[in-house]
């Protein structure tokens, strides 16, 4: 009888540990993939329809017109990134900018870019869509980029 009680005690202790594991606290760190003004892609070849009509192609450097970032959910109690945040790369397929820092942006939300158009001499706005791919709306093209991420030590903690 006593042995059974002892076993129950041991099991309850293990259960408590499991419960502590489930109640994990996270730190939402912000990973900056592009800072406002960073060069997203140098000498990018634009091809496709041009503003003046017809097709055109040109080279242009593309700059981020807003910071592109994502949350990295970091577990404080478990000592690492959570399985649902185990990015193979922080800056591919990311949520990007376009939202307030304290609101989770849409996955693959994209961010504004800007470039000087050598055909018109006009500074144009574009949209860097799906993370890792950067279609420029005016030309329906995509830029493939890869950059290192930077941490901004900020944001909030949460437990569940």
């Amino acid at each position, binding site marked *: 009888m*006593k*042995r059974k009680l*002892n*076993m129950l*005690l*041991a099991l309850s*202790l*293990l259960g408590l*540990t499991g419960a502590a*594991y489930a109640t994990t606290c996270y730190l939402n760190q912000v*990973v*900056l993939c592009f*800072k*406002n*003004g*960073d060069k997203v892609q140098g000498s990018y070849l634009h091809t496709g329809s041009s*503003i*003046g*009509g017809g097709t055109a192609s040109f080279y242009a*450097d593309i*700059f981020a*017109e*807003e*910071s592109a*970032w994502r949350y990295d959910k970091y577990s404080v*109690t*478990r*000592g*690492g990134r959570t399985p649902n945040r*185990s*990015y*193979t790369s922080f800056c591919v397929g990311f949520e990007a*900018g*376009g939202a*307030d*820092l*304290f609101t989770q942006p*849409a996955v*693959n*939300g*994209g961010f504004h870019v800007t470039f*000087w158009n*050598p055909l*018109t*001499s*006009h*500074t144009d*706005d574009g*949209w860097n*869509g*799906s993370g890792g*791919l950067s279609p420029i*709306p005016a030309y*329906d093209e995509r830029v493939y980029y890869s950059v*290192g*991420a*930077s941490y*901004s*030590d*900020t944001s909030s903690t949460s437990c569940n």
Partner: protein
Amino acid sequence: MQAPETAPLDAFKQFLASPPIIESLVWKKVMPSEQVNRPQPAPTTSRPLEHEYWFQGRWQPGFLILKSGHTLEVTQPGRQAGDEINARLGDDFWTWELSGFIMHWQERTHALWDMRMQPSKLFQTHTREFREVMSMGVMHLDIGAIRWNGDNFLAEGYVPEISSAVRAHGIVKPDSNGYAQEMAVEYFIRTNAYHYVVHYKYDTNIGLPFLPSVIQSFWVNEGKEVKMAEYALRSLKTSTVALPSSLFDPQANLRTNSSPVLVYKDGAWYQTNALGKLAHFTPPFANERSPTTGEKLEANQLYFGAVFLNSFTAFSVIRRINKQNKQNTKRKKTT
């Protein structure tokens, strides 16, 4: 206020060559439909390019604060959600972007073409609309850069995106009432020439009657005019005395905001850490790769440690209880 006897066209030209202190300039930029309605990339969850942007600018030589947002709310004091603020107070520059990131840096060079730092070039890009409106639709110029010779002008400018100088010349034509009706402009950048025409409309008096309420800029391509930008000016208030620098300072808003401030210094970005010191803003995952099994185990070492400690404690307690039970049983037997 301009003297009433000055002809509208002369007052217009004087504004471009020697603008007054701007206490408030409010306008709306309307994206031409041929730019907005172009095919949008997948996925559709992307935030589309906005059709309209509102701006409020305040300027005097060496000082600028420019707010932009999606609604007329930008004219409200402080910063509304979704607003972007770009400010310059002498050598201090601030960009408070839509997402909430705040960037601060110093730039001692004031000429557009001498600015080498990336954030300063960014600042020029972000404030280009203000310069364009202050130049009545002429692109790539600093405020007050236009020099008139009769109705012809000449100016030197700069394109920060390609680090190139621009030479612009043009001619302004009045309407039958003596107001500026259109301005033909030619830009020379590197070896290329670009032709533009800017049309002016006078639907309302924005504050200075000789200035238009609508500015429409067209690229002239093979004889066709393609609209590139439209600015609808709402109000303009000038000042005859210098404005206090506090009116250009965005820091009052920063004190009530918990957004991170990135500081650009000596060619690198820093952020204030928990100790209040500037910490280098480094890329910790510059060479990203999938963690190995060992690293995953190491990452969870706190958890495994806790499990081990709890298990060890549990078995120690059980062992002690068993020992005590055995001793108690022995005592009972002996008694």
